[in-house]
C-alpha cells in the first residue's frame, strides 16, 4: 500500500508584515490561516491521513492567544487528518513554552506535537517518523544527526522531519545555523526527509525536499505558496512528490527604469497585466531613472494612485528615481516672477550636485506640485 502524506512547513501564524498597513495586513494574516484549511481540504481530496509540518507553525515563541488557538481550531476541524507539528527556529521547543502550553491546554487527538527527537510509529506500523525538533532559535549541530543511529524494524518507511538550512545551500551568514546534511536520507536510511525553513518549494535531492510555505509571505519568494503531496510505495522506493498550489497571494518583485512619459505608461500597462488576479497581488516596485516634474506628476497619477489601487499592495521604492526638472517644468511653474526665480535657484543647487541636491530636488518637486495645485484652483 502506498504511504501518502502531505509535506508542508513555515506557516508562521501571527506573522506581522511590517511594510503594509493594518488593513492589508489583516488580509495577509487571514490567508495564512486559510492555508491550513486548504491543506486539510487537499488531504481529504488526496486521501491523505498525515500532514507533516516541518517547523515554524508559529511565527513567534509567544503568539497571542488568538493566533495560537486559531491554528489548533483550523486543524481540529479536519478530524480525519493527523497533523504532525515540529518546533522550528521561530517557535523552538522550550520547556513550559509554547508547545507545553499547547499540550497543557489539551491538543486534539489528531494533532501531534513532536517536541523530542524520538521516533514515532505512524500509520499502523507502516512508517516511522523521525522528528528533529529545534530547542533553540539557532543550533550549531545538525538536528537530524541522531537519525543515523536510530534503528527501526525492517519494513517500515522511514521519514525524517526537520527544520533548518541544508549545507552549502545558502551561504548567507544568518542561515548557517540549524545546519542539515543533505546526505541525511542516505546516512539515516530515510525514505524521505521533509524539510522546512526555506519558504519556496525546493528539491534538494530525490529524497529531500523543502515544501515552501503554503502562503507566500515575502517578495523574496516568487509566486504563490505550495504544499507537497508525497507518495512512497514501500521502503527504499523513491518517493513520488507532487506540488499542490495553496497560496492566495502573488508576490511580485519588479525592477523598472523610467525616463519619460512613455516609460511610465509602459509600466502602468505592465502592472495592470501582471496576472489575472491583481486583487491578490503584492508588488515590490523598485524604480530607477529620472523623470521631469511633469512626468513625475504623471507617474504619481498613473502608478502611485492608479495602478496601486488595482493591486492588493504596491510598494514603491523610488530612492533611485530622481525628479529631473526641465525648462518646460520651470516655465510651467512661471515664465518669470519670484517663484520662477526660486525654482531657478533650486535647480542650480540640484545641478551643483552638492549635499543639498536631494533636498533641493524635493523642494523643486514640491514647488511644482504646489504651483500646479494653485494653478488648477485658480483655473
Amino acid at each position, binding site marked *: 500500500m502506498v504511504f501518502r502524506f502531505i509535506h508542508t512547513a513555515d506557516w508562521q501564524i*501571527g*506573522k*506581522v*508584515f*511590517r511594510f503594509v*498597513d493594518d488593513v492589508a*495586513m489583516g488580509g495577509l494574516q487571514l490567508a495564512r490561516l486559510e492555508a491550513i484549511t486548504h491543506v486539510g481540504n487537499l488531504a481529504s481530496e488526496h486521501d491523505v491521513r498525515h500532514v507533516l509540518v516541518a517547523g515554524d507553525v508559529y*511565527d*513567534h*515563541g*509567544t*503568539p*497571542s*492567544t*488568538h*493566533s*495560537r488557538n486559531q491554528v489548533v481550531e483550523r486543524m481540529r476541524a479536519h478530524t480525519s487528518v493527523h497533523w504532525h507539528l515540529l518546533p522550528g527556529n521561530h517557535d523552538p521547543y*522550550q*520547556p*513550559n*513554552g*509554547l508547545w507545553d*502550553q499547547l499540550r497543557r491546554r489539551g491538543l486534539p487527538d489528531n494533532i501531534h506535537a513532536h517536541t523530542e527527537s524520538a521516533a514515532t510509529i505512524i500509520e499502523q506500523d507502516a512508517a516511522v517518523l523521525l522528528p528533529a525538533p529545534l530547542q533553540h532559535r539557532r543550533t550549531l549541530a545538525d538536528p537530524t544527526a541522531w537519525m543515523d543511529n536510530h534503528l527501526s524494524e525492517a519494513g517500515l518507511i522511514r521519514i525524517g522531519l526537520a527544520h533548518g538550512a541544508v549545507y552549502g545551500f545558502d551561504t548567507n551568514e544568518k542561515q548557517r545555523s540549524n545546519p542539515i546534511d543533505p546526505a541525511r536520507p542516505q546516512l539515516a536510511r530515510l525514505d524521505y526527509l521533509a524539510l522546512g525553513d526555506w519558504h519556496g518549494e525546493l528539491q534538494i535531492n530525490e529524497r529531500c525536499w523543502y515544501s515552501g510555505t503554503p502562503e507566500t509571505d515575502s517578495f523574496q519568494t516568487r509566486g504563490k505558496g505550495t504544499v507537497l503531496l508525497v507518495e512512497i510505495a514501500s521502503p527504499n522506493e523513491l518517493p513520488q512528490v507532487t506540488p499542490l498550489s495553496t497560496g492566495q497571494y502573488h508576490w511580485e518583485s519588479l525592477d523598472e527604469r523610467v525616463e519619460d512619459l512613455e516609460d511610465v505608461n509602459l509600466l502602468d500597462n505592465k502592472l495592470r497585466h501582471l496576472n489575472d488576479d491583481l486583487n491578490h497581488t503584492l508588488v515590490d516596485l523598485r524604480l530607477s531613472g529620472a523623470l521631469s516634474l511633469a512626468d513625475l506628476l504623471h507617474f504619481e497619477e498613473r502608478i502611485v494612485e492608479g495602478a496601486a489601487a488595482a493591486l492588493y499592495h504596491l510598494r514603491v521604492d523610488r530612492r533611485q528615481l530622481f525628479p529631473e526638472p526641465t525648462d518646460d517644468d520651470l516655465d510651467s511653474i*512661471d515664465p*518669470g*516672477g*519670484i*517663484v*520662477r*526665480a*526660486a525654482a*531657478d*535657484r*533650486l535647480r542650480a543647487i540640484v545641478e551643483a550636485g552638492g549635499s*543639498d541636491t536631494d*533636498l*533641493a530636488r*524635493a*523642494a523643486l518637486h*514640491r*514647488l511644482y506640485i*504646489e*504651483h500646479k*495645485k*494653485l*494653478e488648477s484652483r*485658480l483655473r
Partner: protein
Amino acid sequence: MKLRKLSVNQFKRFTAPTQLGELVDGLNLVVGPNELGKSTLLDALRAVLFERYSSRAQPIMALQNDRSGAAPVVELVFEVSGAEYTLTKRFVKSPHARLQCPDGTLLEADAAENKLRNLLGFAEAGSRGATSETLGMWGVLWVQQGQSFGRPALPDSALASLSSGLESEVRTVLGGRRGRELPQVLEQRRGELVTTARRQPRGEHKDTIDRISELEQRLSDQQQQQQQMSETLEQLAVTEARLRRLEDDSQDLIDQEGLTEAQGQLDEVMRHDLQLEAARSELQNRQGQLEQAQRAQSERASRWAELKTDQEELRQQRERLEELQLRERESLAGLDELRQAAANAEAALEVAIQSEASWRVIVDRISRSAELNDLLRRQKAIEAAQERLADAQHQAEQIQVTDESLQRIRSAAEIADQANARLRVAATRIGFDIPSDRLAGIEAGGVPLADPPTTVEAVEPVVITIPERGRILIEPAVADHDQLLRAEREAKLELQAALSDVGAQSLADAQILRDGRRDLEVTASAARQELERLAPSGEAPTLQPRIDELRQALEALPTEEDTVQMPQRDHAEAALDSAQTELQKARDEERIAREAVDERARATSGLSVEVRTLQNTVGSQTELVERRDERLRSDAEAVPDQQLAVVSDTAAQAVAEQQQAVSSLEEDRPASARTQLEARISRLQTAIGQRASSKVDLRIESVRLRERIEVHESAGIDEAIEHTQHELEQATRRRDRFERELEVLDLLADTLRAAESEARERYLAPVVNRVHPYLQMLFPNAEISMDEDLNITGMSRLVGYEESFDHLSMGTQEQIAVLVRLAFAEMLIDRGAPATVILDDALVFSDDQRMGLMFDILSHAAQRVQILVFTCREQLFEGLGAHQLQIASVDAESLRSA
C-alpha cells in the same frame, strides 16, 4: 496729460459758473484763503476725469450744492501729447458727458468715458464711485488736503501705470496672484507642522512624535516583559529539572538503606558498650571488696602494733615516775640543810653591822673636830686681812693727788716753763763778770748775785745794787713785755692753783704724793686678794653658822666616847674600812645562802608537780591500754587474723578474673565509632528531610512560575512586540516624512525669500534712482528704502542705521512723500504718459529752510512736470515763483446746469 483750464457750475459751493485758468506747463499756484474753494476745485477735477457721469453714487450726489440742488457741471480743457481735449460732464440731473477731441470729433456719453479711460489709463469707477484703485496713478499724484503727507499708498493700478517697462518686474516681485499665494500656502502647510514662533511640532506632526515615544515606551515595556518571560521559563526549567531529580527516589532509597545500616551498626555498638560498662562496673565493685578485705587485715595488724607500743610506753612512764619520786625525796632533805646555813649567815651579818656602825661614829667625830679647827683659823686670817685693807684704803684716801690732778699740774708747769722761757728769751741779759770775791753785797733786783754770777735776765726793770757804789737801774726794752709777763704770771698762778688743790708744794712733791698713794692701793689690793682666797665670794659671813653647827654636833655625839681616848684619825678610818669590808662579806654570804634555799625550794616544788602529773597519766593510760587490749583480744577471738587473710586473697582473685573479662570485651569492640555512626545517621536523615522539603518548595515555585508564564502567555508577548514594532516603524516613517517635508518647506521658504529680496532690489532700483537726486537736495547722503508696493518704509541718514518712516517727523514724512510723487511723475513722463502733480495745502509742516529747499526742488521738477499747488498761505508761497492762477466768474453755455 497737462491741465489747461477747469470750469465749474453748481458744483458744491460754486453756484455760479467759475473758471480756473489758464494753467501753464510748469508750476501753477492757486492762492486763496480758506473757504475759497480750492479743494472743491480739486474735487471737480477728480469728478470730471474719473467719475462716471451717470453715477448715482453717494460721493457724486454730494457734489450738488446743498441749497440749489442743481446739477453740477464741470468742464476741463487738457492736452495729451500736445493735442487739446475739452471734457464736459453734468452729474445727477440730466447727466451727460462730452469729449471734444482735437481731431474735431465729439464723443458723447459712454463713448466719451471710454475714450477718456483709454487716453489717461484708469479703470472705470464702480458703483460706489471712483476709488484709489480705479484712479490708479492719478490718485497717488493728486494729493488732497490732509492727504499730502504720509507715504503714498500705491494701488496695483498705480503701480501698473508707473511703467509698462516695469510690467515684468512687477510680476517678478509679485508673481501674480499665484506668486503671492504660494508662499502663503507653503507657510500654511508649515504652520500645520510646527508652531510659527518656536518651531515646535504641532498637530499631526506632534501627534506622531508623541505616538512614537508612546510606542517606544510600550515596546520597551514589552521587551522587558519578554525578557521576564524568558527568564521565568529558564527558572522554571531549572526548577523542574531539580524537582525531577528529587522526585526520582533512588537517592532517597540509597540514603534510607545507608540509614538503616548505620542504625543497625549503632545498635550493636550500643549493646556492646552496655556490656562493657556492666563488666567495668563489676570490676569496680570487686576492687572495692578487695580493698575492704585488705583494709580489715591491715587494720587488725596495726591495732596489734599500736597496743604493743602503748604498753611499752606505759612501762617507761612508770619507771620515770619512780625516779622522780626518789629525786623529790632527796631534794626535800637538801632544803633543810640549806635553811640552817642561811640562818647562820644572817647572825654573822648582824655582828658586822654593829662593828661598822661604831667605827663610823668615831670617824665622824674626828673629822668634824678637824673641820671646826680649820674654820676657826680661817676666821682669824680674814679678820687680819680686812684690817689691812681698811688701813690701806684709809691712808690712800688721805692723799689727794691723783693721776689726773698730777697731769694737770704737769701741764700747768709746762705752760709756766714755756712762758718763763719766752720771757727769758725776751729778757735783757745782764752779765756780770765780777770775781766772786767781789760780789758781796751786790744785788740784782734785790737778790744777791750768786757765785759765779753769770747773767741775770731782766724783764722788768732791775735794780742792781752795788754796795757802796750805788744802784743801777736797768729797764729792759722788751717788745711784748707786758704780754709775756702776764702769760708768765697766769701760768704760775695756774700751777699754784693746781698744786694747792692737792696740797702739794711742787710738781715733784705732787709726784711723790702720787707714788705713795699707789703703794697704798697695792697693799689694799693684796689684802682683798687674801680675803678672796679665804672667803670666796663673800663666804666669810657664813663661816660662823657652820662653826656653830659643828660645835653643836660635836656636843651631841655620844658621850661614852668621850671617856675613851680618841684614837688617831688614820687608825679610826682604817678600822672603819675593815669593818665595812667585813660587813659586805657577811652580806654576800647571807644572800648566797638565802638564794640557795630558794632555788632548792623551787626545784623540789617542780618535782612534786611532775610526780603528781605523771602519776595521773600513768593511771589513766594504764586503764586505756588495758581496755584496748581487752577489746582487741575479744575481736581476734571472734574473727581470727587468719580468716581475714583468706578473705583478702579470695577478693584479689575475683578482681583479677573480672579484669580479664573487661579486657576481652574491650578487644571485641566493633570497628565503627559511635559518633561517626551518629553523624552519618544525622546527615542522611537531614538529606532525606531536606529533599522532601525542597520538593515541596520546588513544587510551589514551579506552580508560581507556571502561573507567571500563563500570565505572560496570554499577552502573546512576541506577537505583541511585532505589532508594536510595526506601528513604531510606520509612525517613524510618518515622522521622517514630516521632517523631510519641513526641511523641504524651509528650503522653499528660504529660496522664495531670497528670490523675492533680489527681485525687489532690482525692481525698486529705477524708482529709488529717480527719488535719489531730489532726496540728496533735501537730505544730503540720505537713502530711502521701499517695499515692493513702492511704499516708503524708512530712511537712513547715517550709514547702517535706518529710521522707520513712521518714526520720522511729520514735516520730513511730508517732504519725502512729495519727492516720491515727483519721482513717480517723472517716471510717467519717461513712459510717455506725463501727469500733473497736484499738491493741496502741502508742506504745512515744513520749516522755512526746508520750505526753501522744497521750492527749489519743485521748480526743478516743474521743468518737466506740470505741478498744481493749492495754498492758503499767499505770502509764504510767493517765493515759489509759480504761475499764479485766478479763480474767476465765467459765462459759458457749456456750463449750463440742469
